[in-house]
């Protein structure tokens, strides 16, 4: 299950259900299962594109947890955070924003809301690409990323400032462009190619919701009556 051809709502449902289950199910067994599934999903998008970013992002959390807590607590919380991060990384890699917009519009959502959600998911890869371009430009102008802490801080400043300023500038221009291209609140957009939503996927989404609710009841409600 790479997620590439699943309906966008199904991808969202999986990406939401895994972290929910990670926190609901008893640790560490439940969270270990969800973390394994989430990491496996991330790995289906490629080691460099899926698994590696997830592991790199979650690694500092494990370090901080280990400094602050004992080993059992670190494992319990760490696995839950790993599930959250890996699910999100998988979602960003698997979900095509254009398909999400089409699916949401076809389902009767506002096109502006759909665009906002899709643009949020696109922000990470876009900023990454832009940061790479800025780093390359700065290196051409003699900035080195190597050296001591002071040199690295200088390099970070040289990256961060143009990254933030250019992103803000682009937001202004993009707002004007989207407005002139009809993306205004209250529009009734015509879905151009809504992705197919097979009955089996709809059933799977309901099943995920029911599993989460059942886990919630099993964990928090049932023990009160035993």
């Amino acid at each position: 299950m790479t997620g590439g051809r699943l309906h966008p709502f199904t991808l969202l449902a999986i990406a939401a259900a895994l972290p929910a289950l990670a926190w609901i199910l008893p640790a560490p067994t439940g969270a270990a299962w969800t973390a394994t599934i989430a990491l496996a999903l991330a790995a289906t998008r490629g080691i460099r594109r899926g698994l590696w970013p997830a592991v790199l992002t979650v690694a500092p959390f494990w370090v901080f947890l280990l400094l602050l807590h004992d080993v059992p607590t670190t494992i319990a919380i760490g696995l839950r955070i790993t599930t959250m991060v890996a699910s999100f990384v998988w979602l960003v890699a698997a979900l095509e924003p254009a398909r999400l917009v089409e699916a949401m519009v076809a389902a009767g959502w506002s096109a502006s809301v759909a665009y906002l959600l899709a643009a949020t998911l696109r922000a990470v890869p876009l900023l990454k690409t832009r940061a790479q371009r800025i780093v390359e430009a700065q290196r051409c102008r003699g900035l080195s990323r190597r050296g001591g802490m002071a040199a690295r801080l200088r390099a970070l400043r040289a990256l961060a400032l143009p990254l933030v300023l250019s992103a803000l500038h682009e937001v202004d221009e993009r707002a004007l462009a989207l407005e002139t291209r009809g993306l205004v609140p209250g529009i009734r957009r015509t879905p151009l190619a809504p992705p197919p939503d097979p009955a089996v996927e709809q059933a799977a989404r309901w099943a995920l919701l029911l599993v989460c609710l059942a886990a919630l009841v099993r964990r928090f409600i049932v023990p009160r009556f035993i």
Partner: protein
Amino acid sequence: MKSLTLGHTSFWYPATESPALRDVSLDVAQGEVVALVGALGAGASTLLLVAADLAPRVTGGRLAGDVARRDRSGIVLPTPWTQTSGMAFTVWDEVAFGPANLGWPTREIARQVDRALERLELVSLASRDPATLSGGELQRVIIAAILAMDPGLVLFDEPAAELDAEGARTLWRLIRLLAGEGKAVLLATSALDALPDVADRVVWLESGAVRAVGTPDLLAEVAVCDAGLGTSVATVWRASGLLEPYPLTVAHAVQRSQ
């Protein structure tokens, strides 16, 4: 019939005290091409944003005076990479983004998109990913995307900036075609040599105010050439110390020298 009328219009950007536009009165009729010329910061881009109903509605700021728009407008901004929807896998989808937002029926969207792609000579690129296009190709895609929405008033801000010479010639021909179809065109450009063949009227802006309005012959007048806004022929003629009036185009120069 007037497509756009500005009456004594002034505009201030947020947190600024001096206006970017000062008491501008201007109208653009259907079927007319009006070109805005001026130095950087003269107010041409701001005037286009006001005409497009983006300033102050989206940009913020304060507007004074009267603005009357008869037709729906579409504006082509100068940087194509900030104008893509970011939601399209193909050029066709990118061009269809605007018409789909208008809620048109699918068949009408397809008709307008195909027509716009044909006009901008983009049919062969229809299935390409917009992210893989050159700046010039992307600029043509954005122009097609605006035209596919069938605006009555078309606003261009430096539309030829990313285009090569052939692309620019295609664009100027297209602008005349649009005017021939009854669309009103308001154009800010520094491609002054194209204006004698493209524009019906030229508006010279200086510090946010209209300094002069006239036919493209304005671009060969002494004051305009002094401001660096004359055509290449007029500028060379002037620099050579030849007598006034300066010729506007090569053809005029040949006539003058015979």
